[in-house]
């Protein structure tokens, strides 16, 4: 059906999007790469070639190692909670019960809460050691209130972020569950397969794909968690909650070290790309263009 003319037209129609995305991706990234080889601080005039010094300083900075560990802990912590919690919740919500529509809405709601609101609500109304709900509950039970963000800062942030992402994994896994072949399930049930073996041999294999998608997409977003850290702990105490995104932000916009921050940015891009390659393969397999 595609004539020469419609092909030419198609090319014209697609080109604005391609050109804009190309400019958006290539130009700033090249500039970051260029800056990363410069001695360039906004507070001191002039720039000079620095070779790999910025990378060397960024990678050997103790804060970088801490940030790397924090980033991995944050990503893995949230993934574990949201994947296991998501499977459990999806299995529950897939059962017949009264008021499915309303419960679904309640479960999905946290996903629509903007990160700054989510973080401040948890920080003040729940984690606050004086007026927070957990402090009130602890005092009622005769316990000493626990200062979550001071004593377990990273775990608290993992909690906040996991709360925001649990709806996402639940919704996707629930959607996947609902496409499960019911007749196959019933056939297995009639043949005397127990719930556990049906779960193990029918449900889990069916969900594997959706779980992979959840893990990959969340990882992309979780690698760049920023707002939740900014409004709760500001990366501290010390570097206890500084992830790589936050470290680059601090290095460039708080310390005005353009060179060092750029080197950090390039490192963040490389880390994200490792994940992205796997995700792209998954999505590409499913695409029959």
């Amino acid at each position, binding site marked *: *059906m595609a004539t020469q003319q419609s092909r030419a037209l*198609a090319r014209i*129609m*697609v080109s604005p*999007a*391609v050109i804009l*995305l190309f400019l958006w*991706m290539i130009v*700033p*990234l090249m*500039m*970051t790469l260029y*800056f990363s080889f410069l001695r360039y601080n906004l507070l001191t005039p002039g720039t000079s070639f620095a070779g790999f010094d910025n990378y060397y300083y960024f990678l050997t900075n103790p804060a970088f190692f801490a940030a790397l560990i924090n980033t991995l802990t944050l990503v893995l912590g949230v993934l574990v909670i949201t994947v296991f919690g998501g499977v459990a*919740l999806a299995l529950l919500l897939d*059962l*017949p*019960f009264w*008021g499915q529509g309303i*419960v679904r809405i*309640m479960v999905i*709601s*946290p*996903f*629509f*809460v903007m990160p*700054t*609101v989510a973080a*401040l609500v*948890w920080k003040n*109304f729940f984690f606050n050691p004086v*007026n927070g*709900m957990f402090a*009130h509950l602890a005092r009622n039970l005769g316990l000493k209130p626990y200062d979550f963000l001071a004593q377990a800062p990273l775990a608290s942030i993992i909690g906040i972020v996991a*709360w925001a992402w*649990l709806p996402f994994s639940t919704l*996707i896994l629930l959607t*996947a569950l609902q496409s499960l072949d*019911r007749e196959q399930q019933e056939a297995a049930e009639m043949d005397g397969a127990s719930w556990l073996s049906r779960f193990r041999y029918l449900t889990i294999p069916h969900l594997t794909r*959706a779980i992979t*998608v959840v893990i990959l*997409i969340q990882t*992309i977003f979780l*690698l760049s968690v920023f*707002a939740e850290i*900014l*409004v*709760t702990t500001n990366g501290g105490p010390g570097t206890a909650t500084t992830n*790589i*995104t936050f470290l*680059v932000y601090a290095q460039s916009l708080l310390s005005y070290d353009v060179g060092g*921050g750029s080197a950090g*940015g390039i490192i*963040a*891009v490389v880390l*994200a790309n490792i*994940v992205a390659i796997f995700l*792209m393969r998954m*999505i590409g397999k499913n*695409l029959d*263009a």
Partner: protein
Amino acid sequence: MARKASTAKKAFVTLAAWSVGILICFPILWTILMSFKSEADAVKAPFAMLSSAWTLDSYAEVQERSIYGRYFMNSVVLSVGSTLMALVIAIPAAWSMAFVPGKRTKDLLMWMLSTKMMPAVGVLIPMYLMFRDAGLLDTQIGLLIILTLINLPIVVWMLYTYFKEIPVEILEASRMDGANMWSEIVHVLTPMAVPGIASTLLLNIILTWNEAFWTLQLTTSDAAPLTQFIAGFSSPQGLFYAKLSAASTMAIAPILILGWFSQKQLVRGLTFGAVK
């Protein structure tokens, strides 16, 4: 063949599901409740707070700072504006890729997606410096450009998966009836594409409303949306729980309501069609 479930089992599942639902939603419900209390009551222990008098004072107080309206309007302008801009660019692109696919279409789609995988922090510095030099820091137009670009891949993808579902036979039939390209687009394709475009619009407004990296980095006050307004409560003085609750409720309410209508599209849009 429906699965049989005894009433007792269903009642038990209902209880469990509702408990979990309320628990997950609890921080939101609690914030909404607290927003109708006075500052002095908001910091009381849970039961004392619940039984205290209801008031709209916090809303009045947040509204009185006329500045709230500006943040809200910025959120509306940025989310709706950038979504419309992305749609204008993405509709023709998705259209041609879905209906006139070439050898490179798949590669092109995957490449577009890959731009979405780039962490924002990797281009923070050049964007910041370019914005500073061009006088775009803290301007709506600057932020509109960035938000349009970061969402463009998702918009193209969502539209593409929707357009793909429009049967090509209909196009061929209309062509047999003598329709030209223009009338084909206006009379045949557009009516079928409207639902897909609407869901894309909805999901993208939600994502942009909650975007909290660029909006926090590139704005201070003039173009700052609600994400920035709420972030201003991170180092508060005095009693502010009720005010924070009221501001938070107002910041999330429009998007919560929009979001409830877009559950189905959410899965599709956020998994790039990998889970439907």
